[in-house]
């Protein structure tokens, strides 16, 4: 929970907002000091205004969605959008899994390899299609924490003998 920003997407490319919400409100003329405590309050307000711009630094880069028409893969330029390349990879992995399950004889490693392939597919979708690669890290945590937790929980249920 490191981020303290309020308006994280403000300077996202093409953002429609023009008002700069974190800019200090214009305080051209200092209000006349009427009471002793007013000075304290002013310095307070000033401190707050100073603190506010710091929030900008924490911003994530803003989504770099793939609108281009080419993909760079292993140093090579492929004339397809990234999304399509990922789609092809998903298809190949699925065929690979099917072949393992239905065509080749089963060995001790078949199941782990299939699980790994399926995990890779899931990761590809989450990473590229769901934009975890460019969106806030908090979103990634939001997914990761429950996933780890349910894996542990499921693991526990698998260890406990049935009918105890």
């Amino acid at each position, binding site marked *: 929970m490191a981020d303290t920003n*309020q308006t994280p997407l403000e300077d996202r490319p093409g953002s429609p907002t023009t008002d700069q919400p974190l800019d200090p409100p214009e305080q051209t003329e200092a209000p006349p000091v009427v009471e002793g405590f007013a000075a*304290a309050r002013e310095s*307070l307000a000033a401190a707050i205004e100073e603190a506010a711009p710091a929030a900008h630094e924490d911003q994530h880069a803003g989504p770099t969605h793939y609108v281009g028409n080419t993909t760079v893969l292993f140093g090579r330029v492929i004339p397809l959008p990234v999304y399509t390349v990922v789609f092809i990879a998903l298809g190949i992995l699925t065929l690979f899994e099917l072949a393992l399950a239905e065509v080749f004889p089963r060995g001790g490693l078949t199941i782990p390899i299939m699980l790994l392939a399926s995990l890779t597919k899931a990761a590809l979708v989450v990473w590229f299609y769901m934009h975890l690669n460019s969106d806030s890290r908090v979103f990634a945590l939001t997914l990761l924490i429950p996933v780890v937790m349910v894996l542990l929980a499921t693991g526990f249920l698998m260890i*406990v003998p*049935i009918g105890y």
Partner: protein
Amino acid sequence: MASISVPVGGVPTQAAPRPRLRASDFLRWSVDHKIIGVQYMVTSFVFFLVGGTLAMLIRWELLTPNLDLVQTGSQYNSLFSVHGLVMIFLWIIPMFAGFGNYLVPLMLGAKDMAFPWLNAFAFWLIPPAGILMLGSMLVGAPEAGWTQYPPLSTLFSGDGQTLAALAVHLLGISSILGAINFIVTIKNMRPAGMSYWQMPLFVWAILATSIIVVMATPFLAGGLTLLILDRIAGTTFFDANRGGDVLLWQNVFWFYSHPAVYIMVLPGMGVLSDVLTTHSRKPIFGYKMVALSSLAIALVGFTVWAHHMFTSLQPALRIPFMITSMIIAVPTGIKIFSWLGTIWGGKIRFTSAMLFSLGFLSMFVIGGITGVMLAMIPFNLHVHDTYFVVSHLHFVLFGGSVFAIYSGIYHWFPKITGRMLNERLGRWHFVLTYLGFFFTFFPMHFIGMLGMPRRVAVYLPEFQGLNTIASISSFVLGLSTFLLVINVIISLRNGRIAGANPWRSLTLEWATTSPPPATNFIGDPVMFPDPYGYGMPEAAAYLESIDRQFGAPARPPVTDKPAPGVTVVESGD
């Protein structure tokens, strides 16, 4: 004691509460978080009265060792089952959701929650769920306790069990939606300049609670789905005779329900932090540790569930859960020491809110200690499913959560309604509740250790003495609730006008009129950088400026004479 001090001044200079809301405004769909908050609170309080009535019936039955009020054990089963379900799912959880709804946006200086419509939707799931729950008593009442263990809940209960499960399902959805709303609001809608470390601790508590809700409640939803399928679709997930596994339910239920006990108490701990610091005029002792301990509890809470299953779990797996259960007492202990450190040497004002918070402090410690006792396997095997457990859970849930709710009501009622609650009635309420509570539940420790099982209507004659004490005290406890009801009714009409900031508190919800206008604030509130900076000269200035803004009640001028060691800012005594 003569000098029990009611805060600042009695002469209001502010006119009667401004936005005049009519009762009918609260019966309609509204997306204003303040209205929704009150809707939550009033609805769940009604269910508190219902659940309380059931509790009175239970205690009446237990006055004597024989059946007298009910004719069969089944009827008794349905009494305590619905009592537990109502109290947990329809009273404590929604009540804290109500506090959160009312206070979080105000404390963050925001106009509303991030998703007002969703907020209203989450609330409106509750009345139908409540109707289902109470309706379940009419069609073969649920009899399997609030834990709904199969096969009791699958093979041995009437249709009411299905309705109750549906009701809990709906309430779960409601609380997940609410929690999502809280988390987004807290992350994205803090005012400029308020970091996480400047949020009031109540907001921290709601944040931690919401994280638990989002991750734990779906376990219950999944389990209930299977349970309902077992009941209506002929599946046998939990039927040991037909390939099912009853332990699956216990595991899934406690995956949810241990974290859920923290759903029920963390917001109360947040209330406590806010109330204790305000009413003893001292900064929180160890702010960061308290905030972090909420998160620690949220996470460690997911690793202890099987301490509810020591007697059904495979013996080899018990020890790790004993250890984690001991560990989770540590962050709880941190909070307790923080509260003690906060009031230590403070200028304590024994207002009703403060009294209930102190009541929480004393009773919750007992509940925590019995919790650690229960976590010890050898002891647990003896007292599991006895009245000792009943005593433990009531010390944490009544002595903890309910006392915190009462404290919160006395503390924030002025903000919500613009009028103060009557302090004299409040003190009577406290004394009767405190004594009634203690003498109802403390003897249960002994009853349990002597061997009386929980969830029975008939018991051995030798337990009668202690049971009679418990029952009679419980009637006192039950009646004491009405002192609050009467107080609220009287004060709504005739209570003293509160003004914006009657407790001279530094958090943002007090920097607006009471009750706040529809937009919460006129313009943008400036927060005080340290929400608990009591004793700083700047704090005095800040409070002064609030008074100037909103017309403070007339009171003596500020005289800052710092006592040695303690700097006192407020002047209202």
